[in-house]
């Protein structure tokens, strides 16, 4: 009796991309950013951000893995025995990461060589597993997917901001290694500003090697957290 009753209740039709989905997608970009607010996934954010192009590839990979692992986990969430749920999540993540790795090896070999270790380390990226445990295990597939994509984007956004700063000041270029490569400031004539040119106003300038080191990423992320907190009242502790 109870069962039939439940079936008769007509659920209000929800739009495919309603308020909830928008919030899921937007929140990780600012109010609940995985790196600057939750301080997750910092390890890879320090390591890969010395240049924009590898960071971009890394960001795309994490968006893909995060989105689809949330989707897959959510699809089978009611079938997963709780005793082995972590293992199941890990297998799903590892599968997707391996797919990313094989794809890069097949289509973008040079970048694969540059990122090998870090692509594998997406498996242990706390953001991915964190979203599965916190969201996908308890929500419907579509919303979980959007949540995963949102968190991947939040991570990727910080990665790109840090990488742009580090590459400009550390190497004097942007998107080096990709077809979009821009040479901005350096010591040879093919740079936009050639510091070695005669009568150049930038003769004093030298690339800052500290920016290439992982430590620079930590300072930049720290400053980003500071800026974000001073602008976003929601993040300030009122205690």
């Amino acid at each position: 009796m109870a069962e039939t009753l439940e079936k008769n209740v007509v659920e209000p039709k929800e739009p495919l991309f309603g308020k909830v989905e928008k919030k899921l997608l937007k929140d990780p970009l600012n109010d609940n950013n995985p790196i600057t607010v939750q301080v997750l996934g910092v390890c890879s954010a320090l390591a890969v951000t010395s240049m924009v192009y590898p960071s971009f590839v890394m960001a795309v990979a994490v968006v893909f893995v995060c989105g689809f692992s949330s989707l897959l986990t959510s699809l089978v969430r009611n079938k997963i025995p709780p005793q082995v749920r972590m293992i199941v999540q890990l297998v799903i993540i590892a599968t997707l990461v391996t797919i990313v790795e094989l794809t890069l090896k097949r289509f973008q070999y040079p970048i694969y060589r540059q990122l090998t270790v870090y692509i594998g380390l997406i498996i242990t990226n706390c953001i991915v597993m964190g979203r599965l445990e916190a969201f996908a295990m308890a929500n419907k597939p579509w919303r979980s997917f959007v949540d995963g994509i949102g968190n991947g984007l939040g991570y990727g956004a910080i990665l790109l901001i840090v990488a742009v700063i580090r590459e400009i000041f550390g190497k004097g270029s942007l998107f080096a290694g990709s077809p979009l490569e821009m040479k901005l400031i350096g010591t040879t004539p093919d740079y936009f500003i050639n510091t070695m040119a005669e009568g150049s106003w930038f003769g004093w300038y030298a690339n800052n090697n500290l920016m290439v080191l992982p430590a620079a990423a930590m300072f930049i992320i720290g400053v980003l957290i500071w800026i974000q907190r001073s602008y976003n009242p929601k993040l300030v502790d009122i205690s």
Partner: protein
Amino acid sequence: MYTTKYIFGFVFIMTSLVALVLSGLFMGWKDQSAINESIFNKRAILGAVNDHLGGKDAQTMGDEEVNAFFDKNVKQIALDMSGTELKADDVIKAGYKGGKAEHIDMAKEKKKDEAERIIPLYIFDAGQEEFYIVTVIGNGLWDNIWGNIALKSDMSTIVGTSFDHAGETPGLGAEIKDNPTFPARFKGKKIYNEAGEYVSVALVKTGAKADDPHGVDGISGATVTAVGVEEMLKRGVKYYEPYFNSIKTTKKSGVRN
């Protein structure tokens, strides 16, 4: 609650599915991935003779172009430690199916006993001149480092180098690859001194003298990697000495001409 049987069944089905998908992908893309890897290596080898490619740049050449250029202008031979040229069968016996020098995996060779190693030698024909490109491997701070060293036909003067690494620190050890001025420092340096003795090239910490033919500037902040590069050159290039000596003697006695 879930029964043990259910749990085992669930895990079994899931892992089988995953294994099927991944092995399918791997097998399907294996050939192209291998081609990508070989082009990547060929580009690195050509990078060592970048000044002599007839105005081309190994980094900006297309994949097909690298392949065609390499196969047309580079002769590859596999050597053993006594300097004897190996036949394709011997290379296959050493564990490399392709049977050519380019198939030799230096990281694998590094794990073998020194006396059993086999090494690739690439002879680049630039028209008027021949260059000998040797491959060396050694230890950096975190992982393997390796490089290709191009020598003039006197087998002593370096005309170019290209280095790579598996996991050196960006900004420090990784400069051997990222900083274009590092490989360029070796140009014109000599492996042998005037008396014909083997001295190799050292990385000098406080900066090498401009006229020192056996020293280049080190990398600040990356002492271990620099020591690794130095050791790798000293040991790795010497492996080719027996073969170089045999060429030199045949050249002197005029048999080759």
